[in-house]
């Protein structure tokens, strides 16, 4: 039994999971800034994905209408969240699934661990899932002698390298092919010693390495991209087929899902299935999307468990300004346009949620005091807002969170984060998006809101640029 007062939204507990910064952002960021290899890798990744994404978004004549619909569906979802979750629970149960509720990471880990044990398994295969990273599920499973095997290639590289993910979409983007080859040679017992660092060769090695695991493991753990309240349908969007393996081959499937991932109706998928791939990987559609509703006799897992996770989300929901961070569909577009992320890398954010969305989501999930420097890990240029397929106004939430927890150390952090951009006048001038800046700063010349007002009090803000950040970034 959890000791909580009913009805009091509560933040994620300390000491479990991966949501809190070990050190303040500026200190961690300095390491990233000092690593030229990391910055080269990141720059290549973000530039490439931006270009691909921009091209396929330009093909869609109704992109802005889809964004508006996506944003509104999410707002509607949050407004009706209790009823939608009850509806989802009923639909999943009617289709032969079992629904569990977890107030926080500790409880979710206990539920999943218990289900794996009840299935008599000592190994689980995992589809990449931010929710299970957030709650530290792998550590919890290992603690009771259950081996979690990450099956997404990048997650496998991270796991074998005893490393942390650095990007939502491409978690091993900080590693180059030579490093990946070394990790495989060291960690895969059966690997061909003549392994080269060709990407196709490395991918083939991972295929061979995981095949036996896929065929012999009886329990899988996944996340979910969407869950439809109306029908009880879960959806996982992926590329490699490791998702299909985990969702199809085991006897028991356990899905851990943040309560915000629910969408009201089947029809709503038409919005998000158009927005997500183009914003995320820059594809018209990702290679594989799996959808399942409860269990299907004779096809796929015959036991399905859905764990609905709060872990601080109700606290985010309680903040009328900040709650739109829960609209996030984890596409990572905001990372790829963020000048601060590109220079510091994902590890600097100290949480499984890096980049602009991490700067607003993590401190809300933990309480701002526990992640005090993250709301300052931004130059407030507004590029993330432009890029977000569900139009989350990240800059406004950042400013709101800064006001919520004035913090001298964090204020210094603010200056450190902002200073990099602001000390490079060309970058800064180009990065400012006129409309965004004037809204945040008030009429030009009046300066930025506190605590940045200390900076602008003695300086004039640069002229707003003639083009938006996105245009400039695209031409760079």
């Amino acid at each position, binding site marked *: 039994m959890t000791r909580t007062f009913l009805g009091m939204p509560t933040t994620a507990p300390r000491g479990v999971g991966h949501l809190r910064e070990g050190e303040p952002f500026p200190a961690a960021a300095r390491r990233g800034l000092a690593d030229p290899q990391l910055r080269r890798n990141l720059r290549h990744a973000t530039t490439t994905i931006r270009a691909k994404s921009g091209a396929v978004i330009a093909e869609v004549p109704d992109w802005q*209408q889809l964004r508006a619909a996506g944003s509104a569906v999410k707002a509607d979802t949050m407004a009706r969240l209790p009823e939608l979750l009850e509806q989802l629970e009923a639909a999943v149960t009617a289709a032969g699934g079992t629904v569990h509720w977890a107030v926080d990471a500790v409880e979710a880990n206990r539920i999943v661990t218990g289900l794996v044990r009840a299935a008599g398994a000592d190994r689980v295969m995992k589809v990449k899932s931010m929710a299970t990273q957030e709650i530290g599920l792998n550590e919890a499973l290992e603690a009771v002698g259950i081996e979690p095997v990450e099956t997404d290639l990048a997650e496998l590289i991270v796991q074998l390298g005893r490393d942390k993910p650095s990007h939502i979409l491409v978690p091993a983007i900080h590693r180059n092919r030579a490093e990946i080859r070394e990790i495989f040679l060291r960690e895969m017992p059966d690997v061909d010693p003549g392994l080269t660092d060709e990407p196709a060769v490395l*991918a083939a090695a991972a295929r061979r390495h995981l095949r036996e695991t896929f065929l012999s493991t009886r329990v899988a753990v996944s996340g979910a991209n969407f869950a439809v309240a109306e029908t009880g349908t879960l959806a996982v969007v992926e590329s490699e*087929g490791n998702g299909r393996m985990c969702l199809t081959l085991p006897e028991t499937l356990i899905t851990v899902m943040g309560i915000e991932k629910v969408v009201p109706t089947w029809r709503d998928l*038409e919005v998000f299935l158009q927005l997500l791939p183009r914003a995320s990987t820059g594809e018209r559609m990702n290679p594989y999307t799996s959808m*399942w509703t409860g269990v299907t006799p004779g096809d796929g897992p015959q036991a399905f468990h859905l764990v609905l996770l709060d872990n601080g989300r109700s606290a985010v929901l309680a903040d009328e300004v900040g709650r739109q961070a829960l609209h996030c569909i984890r596409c990572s577009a905001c990372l790829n346009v963020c000048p601060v992320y590109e220079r510091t890398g994902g590890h600097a954010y100290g949480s499984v949620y890096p980049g602009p969305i991490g700067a607003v989501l993590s401190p809300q999930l933990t309480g701002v005091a526990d992640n005090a420097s993250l709301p300052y890990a931004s130059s407030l240029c507004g590029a993330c807002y432009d890029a977000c397929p569900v139009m989350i106004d990240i800059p406004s939430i950042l400013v709101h969170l800064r006001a919520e927890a004035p913090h001298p150390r964090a204020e210094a952090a603010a200056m450190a984060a902002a200073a990099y951009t602001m000390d490079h006048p060309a970058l800064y001038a180009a990065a400012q998006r006129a409309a965004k800046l004037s809204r945040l700063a008030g009429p030009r010349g009046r300066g930025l809101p506190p605590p940045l007002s200390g900076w602008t009090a003695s300086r004039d803000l640069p002229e707003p640029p003639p083009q938006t950040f996105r245009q400039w970034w695209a031409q760079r």
Partner: protein
Amino acid sequence: MTARDVVLGRIRAALGDPRVAPAPVPREYRPAGAVATDLDLFVDRLTDYRATVHRCADTDVARIVDEVLGGRQVVVPPGLPRHWLPGSVRAVPDDNLTAARIAALDGVVTAAAVAVAETGTIVLDGAPDQGRRIITLLPDVHVCVVRSDQVVATVPDALTRITPHRPLTWISGPSATSDIELNRVEGVHGPRNLHVIITA
């Protein structure tokens, strides 16, 4: 007090009382039925994903299957039209084959439920001519036969044609990863080769 009560109680408290009424959702994007199907676009999108596309009459499907899988062992779903299979192919019907048995086969031939031209996507829904999800996952070659009247223009069109309660697999090109320095590599775990036969 169950965790369920606690979570729902917290969410209700977070939303406040009285609740702010949800705003209506503006659906000004292109709805189902708004766009005419363009088969050439479908072919273009499939090719762009490095799927191999064949176009032929229904009576010619067996000839293409022979070209792709002739002389090899192929798993087939129970309801696959038999005239799609050439004599040169060793067909193994899926009567609850084990995963290991399926993984040892060379390929699979299926029909499809619906396809999306704009994104180059094929949707399988587990009907008898498509079979269990596992048979299109483990073999390295997937030959999928799509009738042209199954091709719709957009994602909204596709969702109106499929049933949520079936297990659904949306396929857009062969399995692929871009995790190593963003180089696209086909076939990490799913089939490395996708052949789409579009029939009239």
